[in-house]
């Protein structure tokens, strides 16, 4: 596709249920990022994938959060046993990382998660 695609755009779930959020990056982009943005707040880094390297999971807030990237393309962010504080917009971004570390992030529209 032309841009980063995320699904679902909106998800309402009950506390304790598991959710999966999907991100389809721009073709050819080797780097993929997940951020979380609570209402009116900044971008909280969650996890980063670069090619075949081990992902940087340093931003995941708890072991209820996990993510994978299959075939170096599509990524899924999974939140188990959701809590109300997980309610936020989850943003995915991809990037073609150049050798000099330049290269901008292209963001998807985000997945808005509401935990009741």
């Amino acid at each position, binding site marked *: 596709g032309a841009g980063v695609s995320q699904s679902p755009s909106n998800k309402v779930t009950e506390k304790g249920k598991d959710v999966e959020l999907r991100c389809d990056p721009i073709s050819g982009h080797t780097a993929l990022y997940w951020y979380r943005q609570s209402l009116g707040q*900044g971008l909280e880094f969650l996890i*980063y994938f670069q090619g075949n390297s081990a992902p940087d999971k340093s931003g995941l807030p708890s072991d209820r959060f996990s993510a994978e990237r299959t075939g170096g393309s599509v990524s899924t962010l999974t939140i188990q046993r959701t809590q109300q504080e997980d309610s936020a917009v989850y943003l995915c971004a991809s990037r073609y990382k150049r050798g000099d*570390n330049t290269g901008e992030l292209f*963001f*998807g*529209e985000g997945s808005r998660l509401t935990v009741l």
Partner: protein
Amino acid sequence: GQQVMQIPQYQHVQEGEDFTTYCNSSTTLSNIQWYKQRPGGHPVFLIQLVKSGEVKKQKRLTFQFGEAKKNSSLHITATQTTDVGTYFCAGPIGNYGQNFVFGPGTRLSVLP
């Protein structure tokens, strides 16, 4: 860990007034990027600065990268209602600059 700070957190201006937001990093950055997020939207890349002391302009927007490559600024001349949104700076972190840390953003409101 590396931190990126921005001031002010909020700015309300009358249409036609100028606006400046400042970004400061706790460590030297190899480059810095600026993004704009419109209300209800997602962040969109504006510009990247790489060189020490670099200044770039995009119409009414002027971006500067400090000599020490630890701070940056975005200045908007004669604001318009279309400038409304949150402006984020971001810098690469990690051994190879592969990850990005975002500042908390400056939310700009423009009163017509």
